[in-house]
C-alpha cells in the first residue's frame, strides 16, 4: 500500500516520528516555561507569557529533560507497536511484523520515499530502545557537576545542559528512524547525517575534560571525512544511474553487463562512509578514542545505535543494490569484504586483548563484533555465488536475521556493559581497569550483571550473544558448505579444500571468539578476584541500576527464550529478499 507522505493517511504511519518531533518541541517549550508576564496592551492585565523570565523549580530540575525524553521514547515505542500488525501478520506474540506500507512524495509522479515494513519497524524499535535506555541512564547523572570548580556556572545553567543533551538524543533518534525507513539513498544519507551530527556533539559533550573535547574533535573530523567520501561515492552513483532511488539503482546494477568503473568506485566509496559507522578496520581508528573520551552512555550509543545505522546502510547497499540477481554470480564486494571482516575481527580482538582502559576495550570489542557481522554479510554473497536456490534464500534470510538479532541484543549487553561503567563513573573517572577491581564485593548484583554482559559478548551460551553468533555461523556455514558437504564421498582433506572459502570465516569467528574470551573473562576476574580499594558500595543511582538489571535480564531472556526475537529478525530480513 502506498500513501502520500504528507497526507493524513501517510502521517498515520509516521506517528512514532511525530511523537519524537513533539518530544523535541516539548523539550524546547517545557524547559523554557517561566513566570514572565506580558501586560496586555492598554490594560493592566498581566497575563503569564509562559516563556521567559525566571523558570520554576519543577522545570529547572535537572532530571526533567531526561524524564521528558524517556517518556517521549516510551510513547514512541507505544505508537510504533500500535502501527504494527495488519493483514499479513496478526500475531505479535509470535513475531514482530507488520504489513508493508510505502510512503511516496507528493506530486504527479510520486517517488517512493519511505518504506514501512517489518524491517524498518524492527530497526526503529531497536533505535528507540537503545535511546530509551541511554536517556534513562542519563536522568540521574549527566556531566552537569563533573567540574566542581564551575559550581556557580552550573547554578546559572540549571538544567540547560541536560536539555541540550536530551534534545540531541531526540534529534538523533529522528535521524535514525529516517535511515531505517528510507528508500532513497540520499534520504538515507540525510537521515544518517541527522543522526550523526548530534552524536558528534554528544561525544564532545564532556567538554570540561581534555579527553572529551579531544575525542569530539577527532571523532568529528574523521566522521565528517568519511561521510564526505561516502557522499562522494553516492554522487558518483548518481552520475552513473541518474537516480539514487534504491530500486532504480538495483535495476541499473542488474542491467550492467560488464563491470563499469563509475559504479564500482561509487560503491567502494559509499562503503567507506558506512564502514566508518560500523567501525570496520581501517576506518575504526577513532572509535576507541571516541569511546574513551565520551561519557559511557554516549559510548553505548556509538556502539549500538550508531553501528546499527551503518549496518542498515550496508544491508541496503550490499543486499539490495549490488547483490547479483542471478545465482552463480559473485558479488563484486565479496572478496574485499571477506578480507576486511577477518582483519576487522582479528584486529579488534587483538587490540582489546591488552587494553587497559575498559572503555577502549569495549570499543575494540565493538570493532570485533562489526567484523563478525561483516563476515555474515559476505556469506550472503557466497550463497549467491553458489547454485542452490531453495536453501539459498533461507540462508540469506537467516544470516541477515542473525545480524539483525545481533544488533538487537547488543542493545541489552553492550549498553548494559557501558551502563556499568557509567555507574562506576559516578564515583571516579574510568580510565583503567582498576576501577573494576573488587566490584563483586562491593556490588555483587552489578558485578554479576557485568559478568553476564561479558559472557554474552564472548558468546557463551545460553546468553543472547551466543544465540546471535550461533545464527550467524549457521548462516555462514550453510552458505559456504552446502554443495560440498552433501553426499561427498571424498576424503577428509579434499572435503576441507573443497569448501567455499567463506567457510573459513566461520572458523575465523570461532578463533576470534576464543581470543576474545580472554579479555572478557579478565573483566570477570578483576571484579571477582582483585581487591578493591574500598568495600563501600557505589553511590545509589537507582534508574541506572534499574537499567543495568533490565539489560542483564534482557541478555539472559533473549538467550534462553530467543524464539520471538529470532522469528522477528528473520521476518524482518525476509522483507529484503
Amino acid at each position, binding site marked *: 500500500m502506498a500513501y502520500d507522505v504528507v497526507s493524513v493517511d501517510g502521517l498515520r504511519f509516521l506517528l512514532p516520528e511525530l511523537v519524537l518531533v513533539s518530544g523535541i518541541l516539548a523539550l524546547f517549550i517545557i524547559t523554557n516555561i517561566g513566570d514572565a508576564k506580558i501586560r496586555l496592551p492598554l490594560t493592566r492585565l498581566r497575563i503569564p507569557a509562559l516563556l521567559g523570565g525566571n523558570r520554576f523549580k519543577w522545570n529547572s530540575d535537572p532530571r526533567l529533560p531526561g524524564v521528558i525524553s524517556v517518556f517521549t521514547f516510551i510513547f514512541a515505542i507505544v505508537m510504533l507497536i500500535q502501527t504494527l500488525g495488519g493483514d499479513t501478520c496478526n500475531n505479535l506474540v509470535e513475531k514482530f511484523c507488520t504489513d508493508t506500507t510505502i510512503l511516496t512524495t507528493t506530486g504527479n509522479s510520486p517517488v517512493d520515499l519511505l518504506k514501512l515494513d517489518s524491517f524498518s519497524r524492527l530497526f526503529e524499535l531497536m533505535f528507540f530502545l537503545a535511546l530509551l535506555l541511554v536517556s534513562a541512564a542519563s536522568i540521574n547523572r549527566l556531566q552537569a557537576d563533573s567540574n566542581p570548580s564551575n559550581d556557580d556556572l552550573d547554578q546559572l545553567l540549571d538544567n540547560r545542559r541536560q536539555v541540550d543533551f536530551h534534545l540531541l538524543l531526540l534529534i538523533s533518534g529522528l535521524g535514525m528512524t529516517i535511515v531505517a525507513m528510507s528508500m532513497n539513498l540520499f534520504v538515507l544519507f540525510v537521515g544518517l547525517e541527522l543522526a550523526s551530527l548530534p552524536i558528534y556533539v554528544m561525544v564532545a559533550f564532556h567538554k570540561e575534560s581534555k579527553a572529551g573535547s579531544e575525542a569530539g574533535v577527532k571523532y568529528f573530523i574523521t566522521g565528517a571525512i568519511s561521510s564526505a567520501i561516502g557522499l562522494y561515492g553516492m554522487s558518483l552513483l548518481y552520475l552513473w544511474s541518474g537516480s539514487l532511488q534504491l530500486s532504480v539503482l538495483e535495476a541499473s546494477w542488474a542491467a550492467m553487463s560488464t563491470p563499469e568503473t563509475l559504479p564500482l568506485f561509487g560503491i567502494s566509496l559509499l562503503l567507506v562512509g558506512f564502514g566508518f559507522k560500523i567501525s570496520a578496520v581501517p576506518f575504526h581508528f577513532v572509535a576507541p578514542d571516541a569511546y574513551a573520551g565520551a561519557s559511557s552512555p554516549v559510548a553505548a550509543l556509538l556502539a549500538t545505535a550508531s553501528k546499527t545505522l551503518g549496518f542498515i546502510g550496508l544491508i541496503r547497499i550490499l543486499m539490495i543494490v549490488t547483490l547479483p540477481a542471478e545465482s552463480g554470480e559473485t558479488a563484486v564486494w565479496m572478496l574485499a569484504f571477506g578480507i576486511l571482516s577477518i582483519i576487522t575481527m582479528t584486529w579488534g580482538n587483538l587490540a582489546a586483548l591488552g587494553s587497559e582502559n575498559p572503555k577502549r576495550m569495549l570499543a575494540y570489542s565493538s570493532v570485533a563484533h562489526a567484523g563478525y557481522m561483516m563476515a555474515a554479510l559476505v556469506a550472503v554473497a557466497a550463497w549467491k555465488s553458489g547454485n542452490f536456490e*531453495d*536453501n539459498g534464500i*533461507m540462508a540469506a*534470510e*537467516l544470516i541477515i536475521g542473525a545480524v539483525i538479532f545481533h544488533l538487537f541484543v547488543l542493545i541489552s549487553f553492550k549498553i548494559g556493559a557501558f551502563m556499568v561503567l557509567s555507574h562506576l563513573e559516578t564515583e571516579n573517572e574510568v580510565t583503567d581497569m582498576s576501577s573494576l577491581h573488587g566490584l563483586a*564485593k562491593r556490588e*555483587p*548484583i552489578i558485578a*554479576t550483571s557485568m559478568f553476564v554482559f561479558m*559472557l554474552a559478548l564472548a558468546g*557463551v*551460551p*545460553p546468553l543472547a550473544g*551466543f*544465540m546471535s553468533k*550461533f*545464527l550467524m*555461523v*549457521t548462516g555462514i*556455514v*550453510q552458505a559456504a*558448505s*552446502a554443495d560440498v*558437504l*552433501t*553426499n*561427498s*564421498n*571424498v*576424503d*577428509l582433506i*579434499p*572435503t*576441507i579444500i573443497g569448501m567455499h572459502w567463506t567457510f573459513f570465516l*566461520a*572458523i575465523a569467528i*570461532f*578463533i576470534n*571468539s*576464543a581470543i576474545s*574470551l*580472554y579479555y572478557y*573473562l*579478565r573483566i*570477570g*576476574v578483576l571484579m*571477582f*578476584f582483585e581487591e578493591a580499594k574500598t*568495600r563501600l558500595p557505589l553511590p545509589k543511582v537507582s534508574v541506572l541500576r534499574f537499567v543495568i538489571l533490565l539489560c542483564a535480564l534482557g541478555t539472559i531472556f533473549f538467550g534462553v*527464550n*530467543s*524464539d520471538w526475537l*529470532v*522469528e522477528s529478525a*528473520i521476518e524482518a530480513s525476509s522483507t529484503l529478499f
Partner: protein
Amino acid sequence: MAENKLNDGMYVIGGLFIAIAGLMFLSPISLMENDWVTLPLIGLPILGSLLLMGFSSAVPAWKKESISEIIKYASLGISLIVLIITSLMMTDILMNVHWATISFNQYVYEVEYNWIESIGAEWHVGIDGLSMPMVWLTALLVPITIITTWNEKKPWYYHPLLVLMGGCLIGVFVALDFFMFYVFWELTLVPMFFLILNWGGKERKYAAQKFFIYTFSASILMLLGIITLYLLQDPSAANSSFTGRTFDMHEMIKTAQEEVIRGNIWLGAGTQKLLFVLFMVGFLVKLPVVPFHTWLPDAHVQAPTGGSMLLAGVMLKMGGYGMFRIPISMFPHAVVEFQMILMIIGMISLFYGAWVCLGQTNLKRMVAYSSVSHMGIILLGIASLQPLGFAGAIFMMFAHGIISPMLFGVAGAFKHHYHTLEIGSMRGMAKHSPWLAGNMMFSWMASLGLPLLAGFVAEVAVLVALWFEFGWWVIIPGITLAITAAYYLWSMQRTIFEGGEQTQPPESLGDEEPKDIYLTEKIGLMSLAILIVIFGIFPFIFFEMMSGYSSELIESILWDEIRGRWG
C-alpha cells in the same frame, strides 16, 4: 547454639522437600508429562542454587556468617533430593529395564518440549544405559563433595555453586538435543570458573582463565560441528522451524542408523570425517588427552577441593560421554577410519601421562596427570571398537568418577591440614593422621587399579578389548600399570611412611600440631571408599547396563563398517 543451627538446617531442608513436592505435583509439566528430569534434576538445582546465591548476596557482609549454616544445609538438602530422585530412577531402571533387550537409541524418562521453534531447538531429555550411570554419579558426587568440603570458606556462595554445577552437569548428560547439549556443556564452565577463581590456590586467577578459555576454545569447534551437522539435516523434518531442521540427536542417530542399514555412509565419507574431527576436538580437550591436557593440571592444582572433585569426577567424563553420544553413534565410518589415530592418542596420553606423574613433586599435579593417564584408557576402550572395550571405557568413566574425587578429596584434606602439597615435604603421615593416611592409601591403591576396587574392572575390560583389536600394543598400557604403581608407591613412601620414631611434619606447618581429618571429611571420603569397593566387587550393577548399551551400539551402528574393514 550448635543445636540451634542444626535445627535451622533441618527446617530449611524440610521446607525444600515440601516445596519440591509441591512443584512436582502442582507443576502442570510434571503432572502431565510425567517429567522426572526437567524440574527435579535440572531445574531444582539450578534455580535453587541461584536463589540461594541471590539470597546470600542480599545479606550484608557482616551478617553472612549467621546464614552460612542455613545455606549449607539447604544446598545439601537440594543435592540430596536430586540424589534420591536419581537413585529411585536408577533402581527403577535396574529393576525394570533390560538393557540387553532394549534397542539402541531408545531412552527412558524421555520428554520433549519445544524450545526455540524457529531454529528447531528442543528441550529433549532422556536417559539410557550410557547416561544413567553418569547422571547418578553426578547426583551422588554433589552431596559427597558438599559434605567433604563442609568447612570451606564463604559457604554462602560455595555450596550453592556446587549444586549449580551439579544441575548443569546433569543437563549435559540428559540432553538429547544438540542445542540443549551445547548450552549445558558451556554452562558448566561458569560455576567451575568461579569455584576456581574464588576458592582456589595462589595461581587461581591464571588457572581459572586458562581452564575457561582452553575448554571453551575447543568446544566452539564442536559447535561448528553441531552447526554443520544441523545444516545437513533434512530441511523438511520440522515444519515449525524456519530452517525446517532439527537439533534432535535422537532423530539424527535414527537417520544414521537407517543409512547404515541401507548400506550407505550417512552424509558421505568426507563429511563424516570432518564432523568427526570437529566433534572429537571438543571432546578430546575436555577428556583431556595429550597434548591438549595442560589446562587440567593447572585447573586442578589451583581449584579448591570441591572444585577438583567435581572437575575430575564428572567434568572430564563429559568428554567421554560426548564421544559415545555423538561421534560414535553417528559417524561409524569415520570412527573406523580414525580408529588407529584414536588408539595412538590414547596410548600417548596413557603412557606419557604416567611418566609425567613420576616427575611431579606436587601432589595434586600428580593426581591430575594420573587423570590424564586414566583418560587415555577411556580412549583406548573406544578405539578398540569392541563391546567390551566400550563397556570398559564407560565403566572407567564411572569408576574414575568415584575414585578421582576421593583422590582430590584426600589431596585437599592434606593441603588443608598440612598447608602444603609437596610430595616428600614430610614423613610419617600415618603417625600424625592415620585416617588421612588410610584414605590416601586407599584412594591411591584404587587409582593404581587394584583388583576388587572399581578401577580394575575397567582396566581389565579395556586391555582385553585392546588385545582383541591391536594385539601387542597392549604392552604399553601394561608398562603404564607398573609406572602408575611406581609413582603412587614412591609418593606414599615419601609422604605417609618413614619418619622414624620422631615425627616429621612438614615445615609449612610451623609450630602447629598436625591434625587428622574432620568428621565431615571422614564421612565424605569413606562413603566414596565404600562405593569404590562396592563397584569393585559388584561391577555388574552398572556393567550389565553399559555392556548392553555397548553391544547395541556396535551392533546397530558400527558393525557394518567394522565388518567391511575386516573384509
